[in-house]
């Protein structure tokens, strides 16, 4: 038996010095040799904790063993039995909190790089241009509408179409993918990869209708007249602002707008693309999550000389993935921690300074993190020309507001049964950020998987 290697096989990345001058993907992915080497680290535990750590229950030791033997095609087949979006999950899942967290190897060193291997297998298959189609069930002649083409919707569609149902996905924006196309930047998740995964779901047989705003172009009730069941996966699209004075000055963006302009509208290619964006020199991004890191790293690529993260707690409390924080630091993002903006000062309608107050950490709050408390009289100003507010977003109100009988929680989320994704309205299921509030791609996919199972049962039996 080979001796235990404590560290993950490193993944090559774009050199730090070059990264911020382009929007190309930062990590390059494994070569075949690297993938085999990494896969051989897997101990093939009898009781595989990693599978329990995966919201979509991928047979992780199984696909890794195929990789170890160089059977990449078989690995891909096994992977895709449970995950229709492996190239995306391999890139953006927080594996460190899920499958890799419970890997036995992590007790003695680093866990198996499950995410990197997943990415490798998906990319390997796509590069061969011979994406294999799974077997589909006989057509049931039942019709399902999926509202929203983000990770939850794509998973539901992928699962139900394989079970023989006729699936139509309705997307409000002009490109399918939801947060995968408007939110997550190109350098972290290339849009060609999203397009490829969506195409796979289409090849499976799902129909995708873009630029169709359910709630406006038609209502859920109208969909129910034509479809046997409806899944709502419309995400957390309503951006939060802080409500502090001066927040509407020019130069102050929600992260949603900043990222949508850049990613979906390709403002970084202006004037080749028509949509502009303010290319600030001193950019402050408020927040400590992945969206904040994405925004701060985007600002650097748009030519910022200073890109600052403004966060009210300390680095230890940041909700962003460690990998994202490390990438941001490597690229030169500055961190203003224990800092809370209180107001903006502007000149001629444009933001010029952000007034902040220092914080200190007090007792733990409901989230278990130490509560930040303002330090009286510690106000100071930071010179800025662009601000991105990345403090979170709420569930998109469009569908709840136009669907009578759909129970909504106090945060605007659609109330669902977590075992089935059933809402309070017969025939309507929901999952992902619209039900939970802003969370992760993989949790949305997990919710989609759960809902798909229950939808299939409902459609077949008619029992609610």
């Amino acid at each position, binding site marked *: 038996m080979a001796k235990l290697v404590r560290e993950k096989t490193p993944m090559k990345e774009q050199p730090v010095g070059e990264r911020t001058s382009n929007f190309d993907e930062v990590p390059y992915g494994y070569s075949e040799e690297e993938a085999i080497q990494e896969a051989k680290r897997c101990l093939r535990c009898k009781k595989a904790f990693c599978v329990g750590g995966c919201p979509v229950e991928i047979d992780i030791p199984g696909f890794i063993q195929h990789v170890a033997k160089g059977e990449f095609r078989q690995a891909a087949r096994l992977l895709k039995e449970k995950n229709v979006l492996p190239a995306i999950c391999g890139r953006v899942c927080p594996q460190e909190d899920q499958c890799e967290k419970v890997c036995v190897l992590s007790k003695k060193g680093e866990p198996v790089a499950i995410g990197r291997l997943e990415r490798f297998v998906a990319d390997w298959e796509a590069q061969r241009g011979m994406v294999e189609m799974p077997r589909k069930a006989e057509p049931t002649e039942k019709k399902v509408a999926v509202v929203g083409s983000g990770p939850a919707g794509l998973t539901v569609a992928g699962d139900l179409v394989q079970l023989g149902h006729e699936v139509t996905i309705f997307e409000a924006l002009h490109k399918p993918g939801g947060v995968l196309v408007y939110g997550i930047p190109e350098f972290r998740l290339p849009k060609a990869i999203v397009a490829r995964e969506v195409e796979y779901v289409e090849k499976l047989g799902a129909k995708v209708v873009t*630029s169709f705003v359910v709630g406006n172009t038609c209502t859920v009730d109208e969909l129910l007249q034509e479809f046997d069941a409806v899944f709502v996966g419309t995400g957390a699209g309503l951006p939060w602002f802080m409500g502090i004075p001066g927040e*509407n000055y020019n130069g102050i963006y929600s992260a949603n707008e900043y990222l949508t302009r850049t990613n979906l509208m390709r403002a970084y290619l202006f004037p080749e693309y028509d949509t502009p964006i303010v290319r600030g020199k001193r950019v402050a991004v408020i927040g400590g999550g992945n969206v904040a890191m994405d925004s701060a790293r985007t600002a650097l690529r748009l030519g910022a000389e200073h890109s600052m993260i403004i966060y009210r707690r300390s680095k230890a409390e940041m909700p962003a993935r460690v990998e994202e924080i490390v990438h941001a630091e490597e690229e030169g993002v500055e961190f203003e921690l224990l800092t809370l903006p209180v107001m903006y000062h502007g000149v001629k309608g444009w933001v010029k300074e952000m007034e902040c107050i220092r914080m200190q950490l007090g007792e733990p709050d409901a989230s278990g993190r130490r509560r930040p408390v303002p330090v009286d009289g510690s106000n100071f100003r930071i010179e800025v020309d662009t601000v991105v507010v990345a403090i979170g977003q709420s569930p998109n109100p469009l569908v709840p507001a136009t669907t009578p009988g759909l129970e909504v929680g106090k945060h605007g989320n659609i109330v669902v049964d977590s075992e089935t994704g059933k809402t309070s309205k017969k025939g309507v299921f929901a999952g992902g950020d619209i039900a939970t509030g802003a969370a992760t791609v993989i949790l949305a996919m997990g919710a989609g998987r759960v809902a798909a199972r229950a939808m299939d049962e409902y459609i077949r039996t008619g029992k609610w």
Partner: protein
Amino acid sequence: MPVNKILKKTELAPQIKLFEIEAPYIVDKVLPGQFVVIRAYETGERIPLTVADARKGGPLVVIFQEVGKSTRQMGLMEEGEHLLDVIGPLGRPSNLDRFGTVVCIGGGVGIPPVFPIARALKRIRNRIVSILGARTRGLLILEDWMREVSHELYITTDDGSYGTKGFVTDELKRLIGEGMAIDRVLAIGPTVMMKAVSEVTKPHGIKTIVSLNPIMVDGTGMCGACRVEVGGETKFACVDGPEFDGHNVNYELLFARQSIYLSQEKESMELFEREHTDGKAG
């Protein structure tokens, strides 16, 4: 499902074009006061446009002024071509009720969105007094349409080439001065006009509705680009509007926010013009 074919193209005035678009799924739904977002071609912006007309079974009618690169480029499209995306209907519809006498004011390309609202208000037996304004006679559009849905109609041009010389506010002041009992004013046009109308009506306590046109991206409430301040509160014009109480709008903020991309818009236009003159020269 989207078809978006340009069935008919009419030049109403220099750089003001009318498109009749095949978009039955939007026509079926759109109500007066709502708008659509159009992305005409792959590299184009998403442009919010108010709907001028949409009768059951008919085309979706939009009228746009070529003010920037995306609208210039869209203006080059011909009948039979397809717009890449037409999204809608978006925004809240107008509040239609039997108010009494409603003065409907349209300035420039603000006239088209006034038309369906005035028509609907007339249908439910309001008295419609319209005031249309333009810089000059050649830029006045939809006079015939508006005449049909108005009990009275007045026209002003800045240069006096047609109708009364002056601004729409001058006519409004005259009507108020003559003692006309006005129950409601609807004003759609350039921001400066809507601000001026609101200032005229405010001292008289006449309820005034304006339709705001801030910069938008998605148009569905996702980005907050279109935030406006109304009564001291931040609103998203795309989902909370586009119509608001004109007396409560912070117009200075709207002016500022409409100017965010002036330098980029200029750069984009210069590039467009260079490409198009080169094309002609070559």
